[in-house]
């Protein structure tokens, strides 16, 4: 049967590969494996009862409306709520036609890529970046220009040279993709100075920025930094937000905020892609927010994960060979990024899986190669006992890798 379909597949799908994370996740689902791999919230932190209450309430009050087809642009009450709620971060209230509700922030990447990317076009991104996003961009035929990072995020000062080079080689750069807060996988946060510079460079070059900010509200210490969107006065920044980390990923509700021209264009693509985001899900999320649960639970979620990060940090200090591994303590988000100059992450992974502990290799996060001696660990999902035991196993695996 495969032979019949094979010659009919499009070029893109012949080179389609399953996400390496998903493949790895299969290994991590083995019984007894402690997983620091997937970037998943802790179900224990889900506001189950509040969500159920909100769902019941909205279905009783608005059942007929929310079971009908919705407008592609999003459920109007949710958009109105978002406009108010995100105003401090966005620097102002977004107008209705500057907001598009999406099926998670993944869809923002898909829609923007639909609108801008032809096969062979380039996207600028951090040298290590969220592989889900680069996967989506690849489906649209994008190639990548990568910018190295340090503890303060993307080294924006290198960007003009990189853009000059790209221009000289006739490369069309369609947008700059960045995760400024509590980066996935690096855990770093872009400094204010670099944010200003990034917006300035983008404006000078006329290249839009996709500011992907799923973790921005999950800050454990330090001060919130202004969004790139709020630093821009020319409509060059498209902001992607999500309820996945501040409420629950199973809702699949996210949003895009940006210039009305591009938002309108993305909406026309969305019409063809899924007509609209589940109105039922949008309405339940809206009611949850409107009843005050979002503001009430968010501090609890942040407390919950801060504790987990601190436990994780302590366990790393206790069990890992300190002289062989380095990391930066993240001020928010989900991830630690570990660099092990003398240990191959791939080899360590095999050893770790034998000992029943899992993480994600660094390599898949580097669209143009690299990351052989680095890996990502998520601290939000495992329980405190699992964290302790998992880190002990990892420490053992690392020492064995060194002794070899």
């Amino acid at each position, binding site marked *: *049967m495969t032979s019949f*379909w094979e010659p009919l*597949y*499009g*070029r*893109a*799908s012949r080179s389609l*590969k*399953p996400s390496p994370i*998903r493949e790895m996740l299969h290994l991590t689902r083995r019984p007894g494996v402690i997983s620091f791999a997937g970037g998943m*919230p802790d*179900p224990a932190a*889900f506001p*189950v*009862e509040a969500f*159920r209450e909100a*769902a*019941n309430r909205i*279905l*009783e009050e608005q*059942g*007929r409306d929310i*079971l009908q*087809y*919705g407008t592609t642009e999003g459920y109007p009450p949710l958009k109105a709520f978002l406009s108010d709620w995100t105003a401090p971060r966005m620097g102002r209230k977004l107008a209705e036609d500057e907001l598009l509700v999406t*099926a998670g922030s*993944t*869809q923002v990447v*898909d829609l923007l890529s*639909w*609108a801008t990317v*032809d096969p062979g076009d380039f996207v600028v991104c951090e040298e290590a970046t969220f592989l*889900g996003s680069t*996967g989506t961009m*690849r*489906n649209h035929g994008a190639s990548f220009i990568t910018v190295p990072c340090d503890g303060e995020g993307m080294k924006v000062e290198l960007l003009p040279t990189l853009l000059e080079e790209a221009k000289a080689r006739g490369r069309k750069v*369609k*947008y700059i993709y960045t995760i400024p807060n509590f980066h996935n996988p690096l855990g770093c946060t872009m400094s204010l100075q670099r944010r200003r510079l990034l917006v300035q460079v983008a404006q000078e070059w*006329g290249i839009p920025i996709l500011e992907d900010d799923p973790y921005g509200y999950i800050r454990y210490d330090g001060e919130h930094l202004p969004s790139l969107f709020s630093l821009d006065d020319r*409509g060059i920044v498209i902001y992607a937000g999500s309820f*996945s980390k501040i409420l*629950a990923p*199973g809702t*699949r*509700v996210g949003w895009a905020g940006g*210039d009305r*021209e*591009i938002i309108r*264009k993305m909406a*026309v693509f969305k*019409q*063809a*892609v*899924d*007509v609209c*985001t*589940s*109105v*039922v*899900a949008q309405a339940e999320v809206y009611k949850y927010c409107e009843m005050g649960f979002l503001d009430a639970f968010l501090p609890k979620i942040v407390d919950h994960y801060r504790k987990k990060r601190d436990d994780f940090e302590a366990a790393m200090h206790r069990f890992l060979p300190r002289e062989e591994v380095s990391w930066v303590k993240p001020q928010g988000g989900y991830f630690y990024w570990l660099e092990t100059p003398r240990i191959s992450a791939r080899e360590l992974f095999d050893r770790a899986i034998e000992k029943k502990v899992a993480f994600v290799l660094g390599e898949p996060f580097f669209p143009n190669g690299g990351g052989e001696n680095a890996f990502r660990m998520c601290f939000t999902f495992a329980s405190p006992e699992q964290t302790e035991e998992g880190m002990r196993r990892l420490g053992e695996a690392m020492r064995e890798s060194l002794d070899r």
Partner: protein
Amino acid sequence: MGEKAWQELYSTVGAALKPSPIRELLKLTKRPGMISFAGGNPDPAIFPVKEFAEAARIFGERGQEVLQYGMTEGFEPLKEFLANWMAPKMGRVTQPEEMLITTGSQQVTDLFCSVMVDPGDTVIVEEPTYPGALHTMKNHRVRFLGIPCDQDGMQVELLPDLIRKARAEGHRIKFIYSIVNFQNPSGYTLSEARRRRLLEIAVETGIPIYEDDPYGLLRYNGTDQPTIFSMDTEGMVLYAGSFSKILAPGSRVGWVVAPKDVTRKMVMVKQGVDMCTSVVAQAAVYEYCRLGHLDGHLPKILDHYRRKRDAMAEAFRQTLPENADYSIPEGGFFFWIRLPGIDTKELFYKAVEKGVAFVIGESFFPSGGGKDYLRACFTFAQPDEIAEGARRLGLAIGEMQGTL
């Protein structure tokens, strides 16, 4: 940034993309007092609001699971339910690896095109056909080959010649798209003999069939035809179903059944599109089905729409001119009416002045035609509106004929 700056950045498809003319016309139908036969919406009066609200209890019972990221393939209990519930139609209990839950059946078209289509590839479509599918395919830069329809659906006997000629001209034909039951817009159902012949042709020519069936369960009289999927032994058919018409479109839950390899590829594309369909929506739909409400409520929907269809048939019998050419659909949502000698676009403006709206015929033809057709949806308008709307339409036609 302004429209001009964005134009420079748009992809080929993005630059060519225009808001659909149907949507532009539909804007005119939003006036107060307008009776709309235009949109293909279900009647909210028949939404099972109470039963769906009851199903929301699953958020309390399985909250930690359904608020988490879900498998891209879909919520397993829902897939299992569908495999069993659809078995009589599909001819067997399909396997989990063959099925993917999607964000409405619109998403099936997008995912399938991503897997199959390179720019410039050809898809065979019925003339007329659903513009939403055409829009999605156009985004994938599909070339269309139209095939005319009659009362028994697609005139499949014309296919072998058409395919031979097209291939001789260099067309790379990727699949045949057919809405097999109560087609949108024509209301026609593909006869059993033609289904068999279509499948034979597909096997002979090596071109798969995309059997889109959102209306199949909405039959008001007559007997069901077997699905093409159930006749297929070669793995040539992809079947798409949806909860939009049998439960509620606001859930945005649909599904596709296809050969495993094709399904696997669609899963990989879906990872980059929205990761998974809203688990919250899938779980509520599942619970609704599990509680027996799908089977319990479907007969009520059928009765409700049968009465509406009869009301519209009766109203049109009284108000449409003698030479109006149409048949009474045995199921689905639509009347498809030919008014010889009348340009329905002109009629549209006149009708809207009188306070009734429909969709003009040419919207449904990818390469022109259908100028004397109109589509009237009988499910959305209320019974008293149906009679009054038909009267207004009759008046508008009368005026047009008077001016000829």
